[in-house]
């Protein structure tokens, strides 16, 4: 009865961006690049994800949003061997391909949620499962969200079946200024976290500004207790990180005695060297401006502000800094720093040419991100900002893929990319539509018409409601 209260602490992650991904890659790249893999392993928990088998599939007679702003009426989408082969008006079915007549239906790229706590705040939300906030110190850059992710969270299945979500970033919570590393997952159930890990996706660093850190630590009589305290602790930490980076860079360039290892500083060094992306929980416009200056002071970049309810007030500044805003459609008023939230936020960002995207931060909201975008579109149109439906799909897949550093592999229906595809039983921007089929890397992992293609996590097995429509 008080969903808003949950939002007070639950959400918030920040992804920071670096140009050079390094994470779940299991390719064993040679550790020759500057500062990488020379002094210590950068990928100690490598991805073991593998695509499940699929069949060459041609979906015909559908409306296509390609995820990059393109729209095709009466189009076709062909994928095989886990990859998109072609998207066009009329395509020939290769021999042996499964052909699905999608008349009246729509095909889009799978939805990507850049801000989720599935796995680290799983269902059931009991204290024993509460693993999202290491709220014992305002600086916990040493923790990695992936070490909290419970792969049996029933929420993953709901996000797939009801939400068409194929990729998601799991973030630590926002109690801390430096919350820890994020992890990017393919939305495919597995026995281990590693087997869900998106191969080669860069890590993110979750940071938070504003009310949460100062409330959590101020109430314990500790620093920070104010917004200025937040920034003071941030800057002191970045100064230490810069020094750590210098020592390790020198060692990796020149050899000698290895400097002392600090797991937290490894992550911050990764940010400063452009390997890890900063994903920054921040509501208020004025605070975002301060954080962007702080980033310049220490030579890193904020990839995206999350929960940026006031992003519309500084859309120009965000554009200038090439920093994205990840937002809800209409959440507001549940805490002081969310008081000025408006549902035209996304549209106003788009109008200003800023990078924008939807996010959920919520195990229920992640099941309706397409609907959230539709509401944001309506609010924009009411304000005279007419973003097209096809362009709006970038808020759901391509823009989050870019902010996660995986847009070369997923996020749009371009040949060669992962076949992360949703067939919707109607216009996905209508409240009356649902995913009919969802493919991840070309494997059909949900089919609304086939109860056997409906995932049931270990937790739900043998419980009331097992395997029910949800």
């Amino acid at each position: 009865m008080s969903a808003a209260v949950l939002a007070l602490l639950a959400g918030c992650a920040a992804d920071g961006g670096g140009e050079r991904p390094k994470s779940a890659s299991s390719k064993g790249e040679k550790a020759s690049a500057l500062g990488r893999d020379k002094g210590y392993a950068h990928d100690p928990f490598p991805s073991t994800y593998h695509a499940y088998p699929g069949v060459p599939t041609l979906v015909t007679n559908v409306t296509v949003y390609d995820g990059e702003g393109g729209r095709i009426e009466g189009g076709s989408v062909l994928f095989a061997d886990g990859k998109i082969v072609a998207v066009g008006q009329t395509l020939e079915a290769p021999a042996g391909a499964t052909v699905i007549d999608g008349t009246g239906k729509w095909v889009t790229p799978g939805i990507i949620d850049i801000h989720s706590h599935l796995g680290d705040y799983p269902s059931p939300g009991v204290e024993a499962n509460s693993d999202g906030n290491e709220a014992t110190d305002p600086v916990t850059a040493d923790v990695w969200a992936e070490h909290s992710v419970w792969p049996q969270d029933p929420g993953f299945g709901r996000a797939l079946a009801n939400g068409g979500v194929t990729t998601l970033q799991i973030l630590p919570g926002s109690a801390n200024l430096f919350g820890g590393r994020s992890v990017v997952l393919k939305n495919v159930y597995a026995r281990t976290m590693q087997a869900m890990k998106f191969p080669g996706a860069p890590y993110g660093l979750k940071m938070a500004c504003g009310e949460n850190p100062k409330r959590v630590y101020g109430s314990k009589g500790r620093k920070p207790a104010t917004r200025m305290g937040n920034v003071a602790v941030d800057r002191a930490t970045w100064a230490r990180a810069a020094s750590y980076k210098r020592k390790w860079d020198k060692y990796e360039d020149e050899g000698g005695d290895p400097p002392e290892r600090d797991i937290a500083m490894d992550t911050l060094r990764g940010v400063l060297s452009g390997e890890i992306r900063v994903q920054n929980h921040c509501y208020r416009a004025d605070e975002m401006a301060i954080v962007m200056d702080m980033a310049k002071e220490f030579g890193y970049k904020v990839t995206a502000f999350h929960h940026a309810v006031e992003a519309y007030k500084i859309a120009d500044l965000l554009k200038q800094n090439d920093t994205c805003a990840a937002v809800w459609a209409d959440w507001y008023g549940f805490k002081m720093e969310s008081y000025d939230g408006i549902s035209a936020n996304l549209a106003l960002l788009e109008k200003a040419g800023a990078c924008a995207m939807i996010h959920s931060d919520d195990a229920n909201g992640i099941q309706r991100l397409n609907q959230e975008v539709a509401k944001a579109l309506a609010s924009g149109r009411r304000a005279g900002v007419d973003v097209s439906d096809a362009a709006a799909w970038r808020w759901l897949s391509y823009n989050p893929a870019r902010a996660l550093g995986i847009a070369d592999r997923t996020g749009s229906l371009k040949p060669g990319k992962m076949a992360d595809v949703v067939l919707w039983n109607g216009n996905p921007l209508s409240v009356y539509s649902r995913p009919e089929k969802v493919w991840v890397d070309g494997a059909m992992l949900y089919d609304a018409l086939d109860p056997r293609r409906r995932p049931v996590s270990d937790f739900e097995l043998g419980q009331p409601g097992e395997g029910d429509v949800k």
Partner: protein
Amino acid sequence: MKALMLLSAALVAAPVAAQTIAITGGTVAIGDGSAPIPGGTVVIRDGRVVAAGRGVAVPAGAETVDATGKWVTPGIVAGIGSLGLVDVGGVQESNDSGARNSPFSAALDVATAINPNSVIIGNERAGGVTRAIVSADARGSIFAGQGAIIDLGDDADPVTRPRAFQFVELGETGADRAGGSRPAAYAMLFDAFAQAEDFRRDPKGFDGRSRDALLKRADAEALLPVLDGRMPLVVHVERASDIRQVLTLPKRFPRLKLILAGAAEGWMVAPEIAAARVPVMASAIADLPASFEQLAATESNVGRLQRAGVTVGVLFDGSGGEHGLAQFAGNLVAIGKIPGAAGLSWGQAFATITSGPARVMGVDGEIGSLTAGRRADVVLWDGDPLELSSLPVAVWIDGKPQPTRSRQNRLRDRYLTPDEGALPKAYSR
């Protein structure tokens, strides 16, 4: 609003033409579960609905509103929540939704705290919400206190029905509030009812004011109308077995008028709920085992309850404001296309956020539909109100046109272009 009604009733013979409004040419949804009617007319006079539907004559002298291409519906009835009690959820001093440190419980009366000028009320009114079922949260006891039905009108008189129900927690939350277990919650409930009877028998001899009194005098007094069935008892439970337990209460307290809130596993005991004639306020979207009392939660809950014959209203449990109920109801239509799911027709779905909650609370004779005689809470939408692309274009509450500007719209307009002009943004309004 009540004063206005009395006034208009007293002046039946006076000219009323100026107060008659006919909204013509739109698609009319009555809100009673019936299908929408294209090309319908809605006539309201003196704050009440006169007629709605096809072939309704426009009275001479009526002010007409052309609704061609638009939809005309009753306003959303939102609940059970904190509208009017809260400015900012996380700002304790602005939040009257709970009182952990109060010695009182059942006696707490939210009607004393409703603020019609709250920014949230203005925002939600602009979103098509015209009435709300308001309850506090239970904090220091299993009892949250007495809830109210309010309107969201832009006037100084927001309370439609004060002390409309008592709210009690008897599931996991109740266990927590009672000291740690469900048996403790039931012990607290039974003892409170017993003390209320003690108070009834001998008010002078009843303690209830000493520091260690388990139940305060005012709380005991507040429970009497519940025991007499004059005030419904809204019980928040989710688990199937908890629902069954609640349904046994009338054996001991035969006049209790029960309402279930939550009931995520209600579909598992739907025939029992229907047989007991207990109405339910349930979530449309809860589909996760968010707790051990909601293991079997599914979006099909509302549909399955309704098919079993249970009166259901949809509970608001989102974060984007109560106007989001329209989206939730739309989802209940959407699942109808999924094999195995229990979807609703459009009319049924729309009723779960209008006449449904009104019926559950026993006020459907007054609000929640465009049936003749109901209060004229009318929303004109630019399209299908359950569809995500639609927004209200005009709102009437008790027949009075409402402002459609909200603080959110003002912020939007100020920042349509983010850069400052000749003066700072503070001068732009």
